[in-house]
C-alpha cells in the first residue's frame, strides 16, 4: 500500500517533457512501421484486383491502373472454366470431411481429456506424433490401397480418413476439454447422466467455441487443400476441386492474366468472407493451439 503510494507520484514526476516527446516519437515510428507493413501485406491483393479488372491487352502492358474497368471478366471466368463443377466438388469434400472430423474427433478428444484409463498418455503421444509427420510419409501405400479399391480418381480417398479421427482436431479439442471444470460434469453425474449423455449434452455445449474453431479450421483446410486432391483426382478432370482447377486454369486454353487473377480472387473470396463472419472463433482457435500447446 505505502510503496504504491510513494512510487506512483515519484514515477510521474520523473517524466519531463523531453521524455514524453521521445515516447510520442516512438509511438509515431511504431505506427509508421505498422502502417507500412500493412500496406505491403495488402498490396498483393490490391494488384490482383486491379489486374482482374483490366482488358487482356492491358494486363500485358506496364500500366498499373485498369483503363476501362472490365467487370465482365468475373463473368467470363465462369464461361472459360467449369468453376461451378469445381465448386460443387470442393463443397462435397469440405462439408463431408468437416462433419466427419467433428463426429469422430469429439469422442476421442473426450476420452483423452476426461476419462482415466491405462495407455491414455501413450495414445495422446501417438496423436502428437501423427500430427507432426509429413503426409508424404504414408502417401505411397495409401495410394496403392485406394487404387486397389478402385477409388483413385474420386474424392473418397480424401474424405473417408476424416471420418476416422483427425490428429489436429483431437489435439485442439482435448486442450479445450481439459479446461472444463470437473464440477459441471459431476453435477450432471449426480443427476444420473451417463458419460455418453454428459459428452453429448454438457460437454459439447460448454465446448462450443472450440468445436466452432475445429469446424472452421477443418473446412478451411480442406477448401485450401491441394496435395491430396491432386494426388487422387489429378488425372480425372471431372472430380477436380477449385484449387486444382485454379492451378490448371491458365494452361486450360492459354488464358490471359486478367481472367486468371479474377479466378484467383473468386477462389480467395469465400475464405475472406468466412473469416469476417467468424473472426472471433478464428483468433480464439489459433490462440488455443499455440498458447496452451
Amino acid at each position: 500500500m505505502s510503496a504504491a503510494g510513494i512510487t506512483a507520484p515519484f514515477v510521474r514526476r520523473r517524466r519531463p517533457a523531453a521524455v514524453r516527446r521521445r515516447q510520442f516519437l516512438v509511438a509515431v515510428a511504431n505506427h509508421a512501421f505498422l502502417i507500412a507493413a500493412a500496406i505491403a501485406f495488402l498490396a498483393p491483393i490490391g494488384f490482383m484486383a486491379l489486374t482482374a479488372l483490366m482488358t487482356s491487352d492491358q494486363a500485358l502492358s506496364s500500366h498499373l491502373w485498369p483503363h476501362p474497368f472490365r467487370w465482365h471478366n468475373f463473368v467470363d471466368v465462369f464461361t472459360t472454366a467449369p468453376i461451378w463443377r469445381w465448386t460443387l466438388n470442393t463443397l462435397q469434400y469440405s462439408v463431408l470431411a468437416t462433419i466427419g472430423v467433428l463426429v469422430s474427433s469429439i469422442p476421442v478428444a473426450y476420452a483423452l481429456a476426461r476419462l482415466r484409463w491405462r495407455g491414455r498418455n501413450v495414445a495422446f503421444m501417438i496423436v502428437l506424433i501423427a500430427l507432426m509427420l509429413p503426409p508424404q510419409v504414408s502417401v505411397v501405400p495409401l495410394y496403392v490401397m485406394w487404387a486397389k479399391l478402385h477409388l483413385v480418381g474420386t474424392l473418397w480417398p480424401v474424405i473417408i480418413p476424416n471420418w476416422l479421427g483427425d490428429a489436429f482436431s483431437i489435439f485442439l479439442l482435448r486442450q479445450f476439454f481439459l479446461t472444463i471444470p470437473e464440477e459441471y460434469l459431476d453435477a450432471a453425474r449426480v443427476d444420473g447422466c451417463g458419460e455418453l449423455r454428459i459428452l453429448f449434452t454438457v460437454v459439447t455445449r460448454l465446448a462450443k467455441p472450440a468445436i466452432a474453431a475445429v469446424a472452421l479450421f477443418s473446412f478451411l483446410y480442406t477448401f485450401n487443400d491441394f496435395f491430396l486432391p491432386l494426388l487422387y483426382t489429378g488425372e480425372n478432370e471431372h472430380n477436380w476441386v477449385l484449387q486444382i482447377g485454379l492451378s490448371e486454369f491458365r494452361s486450360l486454353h492459354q488464358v490471359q492474366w486478367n481472367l486468371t487473377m479474377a479466378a484467383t480472387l473468386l477462389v480467395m473470396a469465400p475464405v475472406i468472407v468466412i473469416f469476417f463472419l467468424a473472426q472471433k472463433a478464428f483468433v480464439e482457435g489459433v490462440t488455443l493451439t499455440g498458447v496452451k500447446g
Partner: protein
Amino acid sequence: MVPLERRRARRRAEWRRRRLVLLLMSPWLVGFSLFFGYPLVMSAYLSLNHYDLLSPPRWIGLANYRYLFGEDAQVGPAIKNTLWMIAVLVPLQVLFALGVALMLARARQGIGFFRTVFYLPALTPPVAATLGFVYILNPVTGPVNNILKHIGINGPLWFQDPAWAKPSLVLLGLWGVGNTMVIFLAAVLDVPTHLYESAELDGANWLQRLRWVTLPTISPVILFAVILGVIQGLQYFTQAYVAGNIASGQASQAGDVSSVGFGYPEDSTLFYPVLLYQHGFSDFQMGYASAMAMLLLAVSFAVTLVIVLNSRRWVHHAAGALK
C-alpha cells in the same frame, strides 16, 4: 458372499468403463491403424521392392536406398533446397512475426484492424496466393518490376531465375506469416504486467525488458512456432509445385504444354517432397518413392526429437506453460 458380490459389481463397472473408452476411442483406433500404422509398415516393405503399381512388387533388397544415397543426381539438390528453405524461411518468419506482434502489443490502438490485415493472407488458399505472386513478380509485365523500373531499378527475373526463385518463395512465405503472428501477439499480451513493473523498478529499459521478461516468458510459444515451421518446411510442396508449373508454362508458352515444371527453373525449386511426388506419382516408381518416404520419416522424427530435447536448455517453463 457380500464382498464377492461387491467385487463382481465393481468388475462389471470396470468392464463397462473400459467398453466406454473403447467405444469413444474406436474412430481413432481404426483410423490410426489404417492410415498410420499400416502405411508405415507397408512403406518399409515397399521401399525394398521394385513396384510400378501394374506388376506385383519385386524384391530388390537395398537397391532403392543405394540409388537414393548414391546415384540419384536430383536428391542432392532437392535436399539442399529443402534445407535452404528451412534455414532461411523459419528464422525470418519467427523474427518478422515477433517484430510485428511486439509493435502491435505496444500500439494498443487499431490492434483489431492490423491483426486482420496481417492474418488474412495466411488464410488465402496457397494455390491462389502462389498464382498471385507469380503474376505480381512476373519479370516483364508484373507490377513489382514495373514499379522498380519507374524508380530506375532493373528488377530481377524472380520465378524465372534459378538464383531468385527460392527468395521469391520466401517472400510468399513471409506474406503468409499471420498465423504465427496471431499466436505471438496473444502470448505477448498474456505476459503478466507485474513482471514488467518489477523490471521497470529495477531500471530496465525497453530492450532489457524484452530480453529478460518478454522473450523468456513467451519462449514456449516461440519453440512451438519453430517446430511447426521446420515440420512445414519438410513437407513444402504446394507453393513450389504451383510456382514451378505456372512459371515454366509461362516461359514456353508456344511450345509443349504437357511438361510439368518440377523444380523449374533448373531444379532451383525442386524440394524433397516435390521430388518424391515426381518419382511416385508421375513416374510411378512406388518402391523408390517409399524409400524416399522412409528417409523423410527418419529426418522428421529426428528433427522433432532434437528440437524438443534441446528446448529444455533455452525454453523457460512457467508453472505449467508447456504441458
